[in-house]
């Protein structure tokens, strides 16, 4: 209870709450973003919500060439979650620059562009082209997509591959925009991977991508997905996301990792869910699968998160980031 007493919730006015945040220098009006692959490039959601009011739109991952994605079925519902094996379907960078980015600019959306490639060079080429484009607020490097035919291409599963991609990208970007590396939870030691990409120059981390799963279609007696395995997302994986954010933020507080912003992702459907990631150490939060349940979710989560944090007594969003670590540290202070 002592931890709450410094923040008498009656003393703060929710309307006075400052939701602003920044991710490695990119200022965001509020901390709630769409997650890559769960909002296309913003235009479809634009029919339903004001994309300019979102913290940012994170685009579906863009690759150099157009890509068909995988055969269907591409999705399977699972308890409190789903598997997807879209396989990075997209129009390629040229079409993105010709159509999607101008739309996002016109709509006034803060934009983070997710990129992926088959090798570090493709990543670097994409990032280099995007960094010079007006309207690109940051680049998210998707080294963790499980829906690639060759699992060896999940660069985020190996520190040296992850590092190679991020080095190539940061070099190509040359500091023009922040670079976020998106990590996979499917590793023995996520702190080690985080360390590798930070050492390679990443300005921040996005965590987590989906975790690899499979559903067997019992009637057909084979994997339900055409692509066999898929990425598990949704509320089912939220405890894994919170744990990953916690571990990496703890390593930063302990001096094991260089301090850097963490964007929390995984299973967020409510303001309370988002608050878990924030208190664990995330300075922004992405909403993915929950958008499929209700396209208004990212906007609603932003409002609710502000209310939750203001209700806990925070005057500014920034003060809540990682606060659970502070509470824990106070508990174990010798003179408590």
């Amino acid at each position, binding site marked *: 209870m002592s931890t709450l007493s410094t923040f008498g919730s009656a003393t703060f006015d929710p309307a006075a709450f400052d939701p602003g945040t920044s991710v490695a220098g990119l200022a965001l009006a509020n901390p709630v973003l769409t997650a890559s692959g769960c909002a296309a490039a913003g235009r*479809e*959601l634009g029919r*339903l919500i004001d994309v300019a009011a979102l913290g940012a739109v994170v685009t579906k991952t863009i690759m150099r060439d157009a890509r068909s994605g995988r*055969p269907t*079925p591409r999705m399977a519902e699972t308890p409190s979650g*789903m598997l997807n094996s879209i396989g990075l379907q997209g129009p390629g960078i040229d079409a993105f620059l010709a159509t999607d980015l101008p739309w996002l600019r016109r709509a006034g959306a803060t934009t983070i562009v997710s990129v992926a490639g088959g090798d570090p060079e493709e990543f670097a080429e994409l990032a280099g082209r995007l960094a010079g484009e007006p309207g690109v607020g940051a680049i998210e490097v998707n080294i963790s997509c499980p829906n690639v035919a060759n699992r060896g*291409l999940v660069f985020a599963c190996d520190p040296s591959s992850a590092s190679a991609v991020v080095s190539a990208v940061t070099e190509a970007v040359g500091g023009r925009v922040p670079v976020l590396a998106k990590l996979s939870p499917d590793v023995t030691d996520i702190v080690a991977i985080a360390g590798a990409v930070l050492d390679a120059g990443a300005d921040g981390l996005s965590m987590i991508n989906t975790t690899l799963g499979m559903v067997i279609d019992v009637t057909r007696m084979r994997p339900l997905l055409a692509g066999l395995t898929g990425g598990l997302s949704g509320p089912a994986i939220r405890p894994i996301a919170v744990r990953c954010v916690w571990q990496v933020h703890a390593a930063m507080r302990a001096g094991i990792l260089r301090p850097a912003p963490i964007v929390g992702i995984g299973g967020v*459907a409510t303001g309370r869910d988002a608050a878990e990631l924030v208190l664990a150490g995330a300075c922004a939060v992405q909403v993915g699968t929950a958008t499929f349940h209700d*396209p208004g979710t990212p906007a609603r989560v932003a409002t609710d998160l502000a209310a939750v944090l203001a209700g806990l007594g925070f005057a500014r969003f920034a003060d809540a980031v990682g606060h659970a670590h502070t509470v824990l540290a106070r508990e174990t202070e010798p003179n408590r």
Partner: protein
Amino acid sequence: MSTPSLGALDDGRPGPVAVRAVVVANRPAGAYHHLVLAVDDRTAAARPGQFAAVAVGADPDQPTPTLLRRAFSLHRATPAGPDGPTLELVVAPRGTGSTWVTRRRPGDRLDLVAPLGRPFPAPPPSTPVVLVGGGYGSAPLGWWARELRAAGHAVTVVAGAADASRLFGVDDARALADRVLVTTDDGSAGTRGRVTAVLPELLTPGTWVYACGPMAMLRAVTEVSAAHGARAWCAVEESMACGVGVCMTCVLPVRWDDGVTRMTRTCVEGPTLDGAALRWDAIGAGPGGGSAVPADCLGAPRPGGGPR
């Protein structure tokens, strides 16, 4: 595909609204349940061919534990009826979610997003029209028949099903269409056989056919239509995670007007697609029984080539 490409962004048609509907009635109709839902004006502005996405398996006041909504064609939208604005659905209890929907009682609330998808495309003036429904696929056809007749089209309805209990809306159709034909696989009502047994006699070159039902039926209707110079529009039912065009789960390979085949979102570019544009060679030919990616599809994996 003969329709404009970015269905998600079409203007001039009612766009989706999230609404808390109230169940006004839930009546068994043969093997199905016919639900009448009180909604608001914007939702009831729906057009024939559009669908609704229903949250299932939970109290509507709770975050739903079943993450994904279930899609159901609109049987009818009534902007101003005795119960106020309503939407109607016809639901077959199949798995968990649809069964849950069929169990709702009057007074229960239902969380839905509607209307979704493109309406049926309007035929050129005075084109004769044949509407083909398989099972609950007949659900939207009475409504569409009424509109088409009001617009001056001659409308024939073909309702087919496995057996008489799985026919839907035949009486309705009799009141609304010029002519109604019934087929059942087991002969328990109408002509014994598939809808394609009676379809040829109804087709003249230039006829527009609208078909709603299982994929195998859609394919057969497309083939028979093509053979008779008719144009077939197919309302497809693919598994949908989002229903609003953002997730890319609901795709089918479709040849677009530029001749290029793309894995195309059926929730926003469809659900009604030009039967001649659907790549039937790939549909059902995928490794999991879904759609393969045709080798000439935009962005298809190059055989043996580069990292995918």
